[in-house]
């Protein structure tokens, strides 16, 4: 007999400062460490037209110096406090975060407030980080087999509206064209306290932590935010296809993307569970059919950015298939998996374990999420998304219920409604050197 499942409850307290900055705290005194994050509601989806890659280049600039902490000072102050820091650029958010021993909480808040208040960077910093970003693109995309597959390849095929469909890492010509004036203007437009949430997790007294947040952040002036850009997609009427050369890797790779239902709708919950029926390693229907049974593919899995996007996004299957099979033929076998699900639905005996695994993965994400070195990174990330996109950080304690309530009928219905050609895009990476012939 297994003991009954323990229901997890994450303590969440939140407030909004006079300048509009939302502040969320989740205390946990089990270890003397804190994780702090500032999330701005701007990602590469909303970067300026003709400035592809700018949101990410800008993220690098946020480490180049602010009013009272010059170049390398942010990094030095965090590292020398015994902590780690980083930032990432996503579709709809850009985040900056630190994990430190809890005695450095105030110092980290000071640093984040300083760069929210005033960025202080020059042309030399911009030139330097432009070079660094180009090497980042080379090492992650251009000089890697399957680099950028499919996160950079698929959106231009799947979407028509520029915010959703452009090169998020940036064309080098666009990176070269970015100026210091662009940097300051982007900062003024999007990096206002009323476009952000501050998160504090771990070993602190919440009252003290809120008081520190107020002390360092509340007098940063609010900004006049531009109206939210229109990121909606025009209706899609037929399947979209694209082919991109794979210059290094020997195997053909296929990405199949279906656009997800809008966030927080009943279909959205069901689609997230459906995605886990198809994917999720060796037990997923796609791996079982393509890798284990038919042995067409070497690897086949997929995922969906369910929680952390706030605009058109896709559930994506990724297939690496053997060179002796065609990509067309591989997609045809994949389609059999989809058709079977649409026609026969799913038995509770298959769906229930998928939901158990979903719950387990959700907990794992909350605890770590960024390797094992940044405690509660995932909790911070979800709290930020629930605050910025849904207006309620406490969703972290309730959102799971919606997924666990999904029925077999809903899964079948969503499969029929969304897993259709007029809602999908297929992208093939075609090797220049098929099969790795020597």
């Amino acid at each position: 007999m297994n003991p009954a499942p323990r229901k997890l409850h994450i303590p969440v307290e939140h407030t909004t400062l006079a300048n509009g900055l939302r502040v969320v705290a989740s205390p946990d005194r089990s270890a003397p460490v804190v994780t702090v994050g500032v999330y701005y509601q701007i990602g590469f989806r909303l970067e300026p037209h003709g400035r592809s890659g700018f949101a990410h280049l800008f993220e690098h600039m946020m480490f180049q110096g602010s009013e009272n902490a010059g170049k390398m000072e942010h990094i030095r102050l965090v590292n020398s406090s015994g902590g780690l820091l980083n930032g990432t650029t996503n579709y709809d958010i850009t985040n900056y975060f630190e994990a430190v021993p809890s005695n450095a909480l105030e110092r980290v808040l000071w640093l984040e407030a300083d760069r929210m208040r005033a960025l202080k960077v020059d042309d030399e910093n911009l030139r330097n980080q432009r070079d660094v970003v180009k090497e980042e693109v080379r090492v992650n995309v251009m000089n890697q087999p399957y680099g950028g597959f499919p996160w950079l390849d698929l959106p231009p095929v799947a979407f028509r509206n520029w915010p959703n469909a452009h090169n998020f890492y940036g064309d080098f010509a666009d990176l070269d064209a970015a100026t210091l004036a662009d940097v300051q203007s982007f900062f003024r437009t999007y990096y206002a306290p009323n476009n952000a949430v501050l998160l504090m997790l771990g070993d602190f007294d919440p009252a003290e932590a809120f008081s520190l947040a107020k002390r360092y952040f509340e007098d940063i002036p609010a900004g006049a935010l531009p109206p939210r850009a229109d990121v909606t997609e025009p209706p899609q009427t037929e399947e979209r296809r694209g082919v991109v050369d794979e210059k290094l890797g020997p195997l053909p790779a296929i990405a199949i993307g279906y656009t997800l239902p809008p966030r927080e709708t009943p279909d959205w919950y069901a689609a997230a569970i459906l995605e886990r029926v198809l994917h999720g390693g060796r037990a997923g229907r796609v791996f079982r059919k393509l890798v284990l049974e038919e042995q067409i593919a070497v690897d086949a899995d997929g995922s969906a950015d369910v929680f952390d996007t706030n605009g058109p996004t896709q559930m994506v299957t990724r297939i690496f298939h053997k060179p002796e099979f065609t990509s067309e033929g591989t997609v045809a076998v994949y389609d059999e998996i989809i058709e079977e699900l649409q026609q026969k639905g799913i038995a509770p005996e298959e769906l229930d374990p998928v939901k158990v695994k979903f719950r387990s993965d959700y907990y794992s994400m909350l605890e770590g999420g960024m390797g094992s070195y940044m405690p509660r990174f995932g909790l911070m990330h979800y709290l930020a998304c629930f605050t910025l996109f849904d207006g309620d950080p406490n969703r972290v304690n309730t959102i799971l219920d919606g997924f666990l309530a999904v029925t077999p009928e809903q899964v079948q219905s969503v499969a029929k409604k969304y897993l259709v050609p007029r809602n999908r895009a297929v992208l093939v990476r075609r090797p220049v050197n098929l099969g790795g012939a020597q």
Partner: protein
Amino acid sequence: MTTPAPSISHRSTPPALSPERPVEWPKRTVRTLPNGLQVVLAESRTFPKISAQLYFRSGNAVVALRAPGLAEMTATVVRTGTTSRPSRQIEEDLRRMGAGLGTSSGADSSAISASGLAEFSAEILALIADLARNASFPENEFERERRQRFEELKIERTTPGFLANERLRKVLFGLHPYAIISPTEEQVASYRREQLEEFYHQRYVPSDALLIVVGDFSTGAMLEQIEKVFGDWKAPKPATPESPAPPRQSGRRVHLVHMPGTVQTQVLLGNLAITRRDPDWYRTVLANSIYGGAFHSRLVINIREQKGYTYSPRSGISALRQLGFFTVHAAVRNDVAAATLTEMFYEMDRMRSLPVTPEELDSARSYLTGVFSLGVATQDGLLGQLSTVYLDQLPESYLETYREKIRALTADDVVAAARRHFDSANAQIVLVGDRAQIGEQAALFGPVTEYDAQGNVAAFGPGDTRA
């Protein structure tokens, strides 16, 4: 109002650190069962999950001289069936328990690991035991995995980072088994199912095993469960073969792996260093952190933040069970490959000749001690730390004393460690890139031997005496 208005001064200088809260290291329970299985348990109740890893202290190194990669293939096939559970059953059981499973083998150990919901602890342990004791090595699963391995090996040969690591390991370790990080397709083609079974029966044994479980459980009940599924398992401890010594290097040499048309050069250099059991370990870790082991290190400031040559330069000290090595790496644009090497050596030589400043010393000590405490604040992080301690058979007090040992180090320790273990004069240099772009730059640093991506020697440079 009595509250003073916020002054500008609280903005202009960073706040001092407040008093440190003591780190309470997680309590461990360590037991050795009569069959030799060492068990380490640590309760961590923050999330209703458990993570368990069962290690065997034999990996690819013990078979490297007759069948490279055989341990890895054995681990891969272990998860594909037991005498009572076919592959599909294993995967469905995992899902039902909300669990993930990994089976793998490195140079020195093989591991079966699973993590899942705490409510299924007993079943997760039973599955690990089933895989460890009753794997059935189905012929069809083995052949399918073998074919997949062929395709993975082809992809590895198009990955610059892999090619750099592979070449450096061959150069540094010579005839020692640590020289081989991946088999050839011919070697994989020659594996026989009986070889996998033989490795499994000889090496997956309780007398040479370590089980670590971290998570939401009560220790007494967990111990009972472990005794139930592992207690009646008996097998003798296998012998470990002697390994040939690695070569001594004299002088810098360049090993250029030619990949035509690449838009970037992978730079990797290194030398043999030490294991965690060496008395120099802590001071070398500290020296590495100041040199290139952290974001705020000399190498990163120099070639990233000042010169913009690269995105993610780092140095590291890697400890395998018998031997360790020091490495420095960066992926750089082609025209600065030589400039990058110059700066890497400049910073190494500076570490070897001049004392670090008190500020750098203090900062690096705080960095290492702080990051160490972050690393044990999650279940996975704690599991990783415990595996380091118990797999390498380090002193029990490792967790409790790490921070004080780092804090006691001085600037003299750093110079001494750099002189002994950053072997600038005899460092071996690997460049992965396009000969036409970097050949001349490479020759500035020593005799050049050129390889193709398959690992064959393609050409000897003019300075190479072996040509």
